[in-house]
């Protein structure tokens, strides 16, 4: 299949008089790890809920492997596994049985689902809890169960809505590793998050969404280089008055032997700054560089912090 795994074009959605999505366009290739990055209320969950059939769209095209998610819902839904942000609660059945039911909804009989269910329970550390009810699991275990439920029918596309929200650092790193393994196994992953680190570490490509619009899309490293402002702080040995003329092309502040440069690309800018200071015989005492991050990109684009 050469079709994009996910294709979203001109997607619009309003809840009463609130415009949640204002024409979202996203294309995700097969095997890509894609991040949808934005603050709460940006439109991330609405986008994936439309894709998976939980929310009606007002306008636009949503396709999975070239098939319309409404007309060909059986095909598109069978290709997607979704781990929702909110936990579901079931009072009646043990978690192992819930996984068998979940596989059944996707047309997989119990006998065929058994190896997958066992391996998921093992991999996600839930084997000992297979007979427990959901209410008996900790928050982290519930989060892992959400992931198991999304994977039980071995989908080609995995959609994860804030998969590490509310989990401790150790589990977050474990889940990240598992997501990397899934990606390496060829799965297409769409991740929504407001954790910058998560998107930077995992995603091949990210789209920054705010107030229902995609503001920027691309490789997180390139985006941070192109759009993010990084800081370079240099402490010099003596106070100098000629800095303004030396650094006409730079944005900087100077106070008490401390020069702070705000640059787009610190890797390019730093050698240039050092060159200028050396040629002017200004002695450098220390250099500190703060790397640009997606957070800076988001700040540049929206003028606000992501979380």
């Amino acid at each position: 299949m050469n079709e994009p795994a996910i294709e979203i074009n001109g997607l619009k959605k309003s809840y009463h008089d609130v415009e949640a999505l204002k024409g979202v366009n996203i294309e995700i290739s097969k095997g890509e790890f894609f991040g949808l990055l934005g603050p709460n209320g940006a439109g991330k969950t609405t986008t994936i809920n439309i894709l998976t059939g939980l929310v009606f769209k007002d306008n636009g095209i949503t396709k999975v492997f070239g098939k319309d998610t409404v007309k060909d819902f059986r095909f598109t839904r069978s290709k997607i596994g979704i781990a929702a942000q909110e936990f579901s609660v079931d009072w009646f059945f043990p978690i192992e049985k819930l996984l068998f039911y979940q596989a059944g909804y996707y047309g997989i009989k119990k006998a065929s689902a058994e190896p997958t269910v066992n391996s998921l329970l093992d991999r996600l550390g839930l084997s000992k809890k297979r007979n427990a009810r959901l209410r008996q699991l900790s928050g982290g275990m519930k989060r892992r169960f959400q992931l198991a439920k999304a994977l039980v029918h071995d989908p080609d596309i995995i959609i994860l809505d804030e998969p590490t929200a509310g989990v401790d650092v150790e589990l977050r790193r474990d889940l990240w590793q598992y997501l990397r393994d899934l990606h390496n196994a060829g799965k297409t992953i769409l991740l929504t998050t407001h954790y910058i680190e998560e998107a930077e570490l995992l995603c091949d490509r990210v789209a920054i969404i705010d107030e229902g619009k995609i503001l920027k899309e691309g490789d997180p490293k390139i985006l941070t280089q192109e759009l993010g402002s990084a800081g370079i702080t240099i402490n010099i040995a003596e106070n100098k008055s000629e800095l303004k003329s030396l650094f006409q092309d730079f944005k900087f502040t100077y106070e008490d032997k401390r020069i702070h440069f705000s640059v787009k690309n610190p890797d390019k800018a730093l050698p240039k700054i050092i060159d200028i200071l050396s040629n002017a015989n200004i002695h450098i005492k220390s250099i500190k560089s703060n790397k640009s991050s997606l957070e800076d990109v988001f700040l540049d684009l929206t003028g606000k912090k992501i979380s």
Partner: protein
Amino acid sequence: MNWVGFSTLIKREVGRFFSVYRQTVLPGLITSSLYIAIFGFTLEQRIAEIQGVPYTLFILPGLIMMNTLTNATANTSSSMLQMKLLQQLPDLLTAPLSGLEIALAYIIGGTVRGMVNGILVLILGVVLIKMPVYDLFGTIVFIFLVSWAFSSMGLLLGQLSESWDQLAMMQNFFLTPLSFLGGIFYSIYMLPDWAQTLSLINPIYYMINGIRYTTLGVSDSPVFISYTMALILTLCFTFASIYLMTTGKRIKQ
């Protein structure tokens, strides 16, 4: 048609109520036994016979019907509302299941619960007070039809309700009074004329009299009308609940 998905959901719905049989199966048997003991045996001394049938026997078809329809309604309505409120519904709505498959699986789950409860009270009557069953096949068909109709109605109510309070209101203010006023404990000919006329617009009156005819061979209304009413209710509620599910108007945004 996603047959495996469809049958999985039926198994889940049936398994759900069997897993809590102390809430969903036993209470019907206990309350029916109490009704037989308290209403039947005490009132039998004052009301000897109605339409030639001893009073304790006379009330039993009504008890079967009340159990059938309240359980069928409760299964689908509470399961649907629970799924909505506890975030379980997205698991179904994101799966490759159509609205028709989901609705039918729910209705079948509720029908099974209605039939299990109805048939258990029927057996209770046969064992406890030697109730004769005039037409066993007709009785089972009638229990099935009523279970299906009220299971569909429950699915409709479950989709329409936004809270337990709303659901309880519909059940307490409509279903229970209509059941009691449908002639479980009396023949409508014992009522004043105006109340008799009023009873004719109560659909549950026809359900109770239908099963009274198939079990005891007596009825306030012709059995043909009871079957027709049961069929009309079944078709109306089935189409309405499936329509609402397939359009997704009350379960999706």
